């Protein structure tokens, strides 16, 4: 029989212990059984990855033996076993111990953390300021400043599209032009801007659409003052839900600009970018250290080893961890590295990690004869 103890320890930046919790881990989930089955039976196995996609895991992967690997590098660092091809790349944070804010009770079919805390340093102490008229529901450009160049225009419209919020959205698009085609050329643009206090804003999220059959002639950009912070090449008639822009590097009042700019000639009116529901977010992150697996020891009738990871709060916010889990790697039959949740536990009440503090999470799997 195998069981596991789960320990959470809150440390100050000098490593001094401030708080310690210990509880039995209760929640090894189906993906662990899938990966063990694959190894026992020596057969490929379809199992659900952390993005809810069913992946057929290759029992004999060609590029490295990553199946069931839990040990991992820190944060964004590449995992050595799978960096032979960018398609196989997983980050260190994708495997090993995970933390999150979710509070829902674990079930055997959990395939991801309920509300995972990503690796990073963002997180502000206060409530983020909001854009004025973020969804254009006034039916006009109240709160926004617009500018155009060449055969482009800014207009608030109300047509239906997939990710529109409410009635209206803002179109940054080509305008009918007199003269000889092409009607527009590279460098023509339409943009809207607004000044906002970004002190407590870590990310800006918006809904975007590449509108029309000439949308692929355009790029879409976000600027903070004179600095570009985001760009995407649009495709024809394509929705881009929940675009995220990291603005955690900015504090104080800045001008944020959303811009549709042509990168090639275009020959028709009303093509370009549609944007809606521009939100400001305060997303908290913890810096993931490497996940180590150490201290294999036996003393009849018991045996155990330790799985451990440090999480550093380098944000300005206090972050409460309510759930802890373990993700293992696997390689699918397309030779791509995937991450699979194999355990998930809820910590109740949550443990609050103040700015500058460190959380040490330790799982100790144990067997007893």
């Amino acid at each position, binding site marked *: 029989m195998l069981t596991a103890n789960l320990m959470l320890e809150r440390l100050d930046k000098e490593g001094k212990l401030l708080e310690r919790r210990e509880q039995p881990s209760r929640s090894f989930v189906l993906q662990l059984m899938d990966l063990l089955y694959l190894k026992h039976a020596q057969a490929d196995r379809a199992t659900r990855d952390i993005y809810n996609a069913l992946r057929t895991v290759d029992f004999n*992967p060609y590029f490295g033996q990553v199946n069931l690997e839990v040990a991992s590098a820190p944060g964004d660092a590449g995992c050595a076993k799978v960096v032979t091809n960018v398609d196989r790349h997983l980050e260190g944070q994708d495997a090993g111990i995970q933390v999150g804010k979710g509070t829902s009770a674990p079930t055997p079919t959990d395939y991801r953390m309920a509300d995972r805390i990503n690796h990073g340093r963002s997180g502000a102490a206060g409530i983020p300021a909001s854009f004025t008229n973020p969804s254009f529901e006034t039916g006009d450009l109240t709160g926004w400043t617009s500018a155009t160049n060449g055969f482009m225009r800014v207009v608030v419209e109300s047509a239906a599209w997939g990710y529109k919020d409410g009635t209206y959205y803002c179109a940054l698009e080509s305008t009918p032009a007199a003269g000889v085609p092409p009607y527009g050329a590279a460098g023509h643009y339409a943009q809207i801007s607004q000044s906002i206090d970004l002190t407590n804003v870590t990310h800006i999220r918006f809904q975007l659409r590449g509108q029309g059959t000439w949308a692929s002639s355009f790029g879409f950009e976000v600027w903070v003052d004179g600095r570009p912070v985001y760009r995407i090449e649009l495709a024809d008639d394509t929705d881009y839900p929940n675009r995220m822009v990291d603005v955690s590097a900015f504090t104080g009042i800045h001008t944020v600009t959303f811009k549709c700019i042509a990168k090639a000639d275009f020959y028709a009116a009303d093509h370009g970018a549609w944007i809606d529901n521009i939100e400001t977010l305060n997303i908290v992150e913890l810096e993931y250290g490497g996940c180590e697996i150490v201290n294999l020891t*036996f003393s009849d009738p018991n045996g155990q080893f330790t799985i451990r990871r440090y999480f550093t709060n380098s944000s300005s916010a206090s972050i409460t961890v309510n759930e802890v889990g373990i993700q293992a790697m696997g390689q699918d039959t397309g030779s791509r590295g995937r991450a699979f949740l194999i355990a998930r536990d809820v910590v109740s009440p949550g443990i609050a990690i103040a700015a500058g503090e460190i959380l040490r999470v330790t799982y100790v799997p144990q067997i007893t*004869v």
Partner: protein
Amino acid sequence: MDAQVKAKPELEIVNEGQIPNLLVRGEVGAVLELIVKDKNDKVTDHRIMKSRSFVRQSLELLFVEFNKLPPKAALVMKDIGGFPRYIREGYRNFDCAGGVGDLARGIMVGTGTTAPTIDDYVLQARIAHGTSAGQLQYGGVTFGLPASDPTTSQFTITRDFANASGGDITVNEIGLYVVGWDGATRYFMVIRDVIAGGIAVPNGQTLTVNYREQAVV
């Protein structure tokens, strides 16, 4: 505490989905099911119990796999011959898909009765494959696909042992042998259970052993 056998005089086949959950929340373990059938496929004995004895090599192999130990950091493990082997990452690790008569991989049975210890690395007295006196015919190992219900996820490892030896045989111990990789395939025992009182397999009858590996939330 030794595993307790719940002998059931009423004979019935229990479907996989109806197997009683003998594990408690948080446990990853195995439920051991033993079924004896006569040549007419009539069940003559049926027992379900909690497997109690993941032994040392099970945790060691999990440690190797979780860490993906490279060759230069291989872990020394004792194989079923008692030899030290330097085991490292490998897709064959945990392979227990033994074929008919394979005495290196899969579920094994024996006559030993000593209580399991964590350091057990081989069955005390494995029963050989064959039709001679004291032998059982080992079938191929088969697997039930992983599945889950609201509390439990599991998969099943199954093997049949047919008695054509001409005499009755009592199975007292059951184990699971798997592969560990050191550049070649080596074999390791990861589970050993002792059946209190043993389970008799009369001549002409077949013992089916199911290990249902489970995780309970």
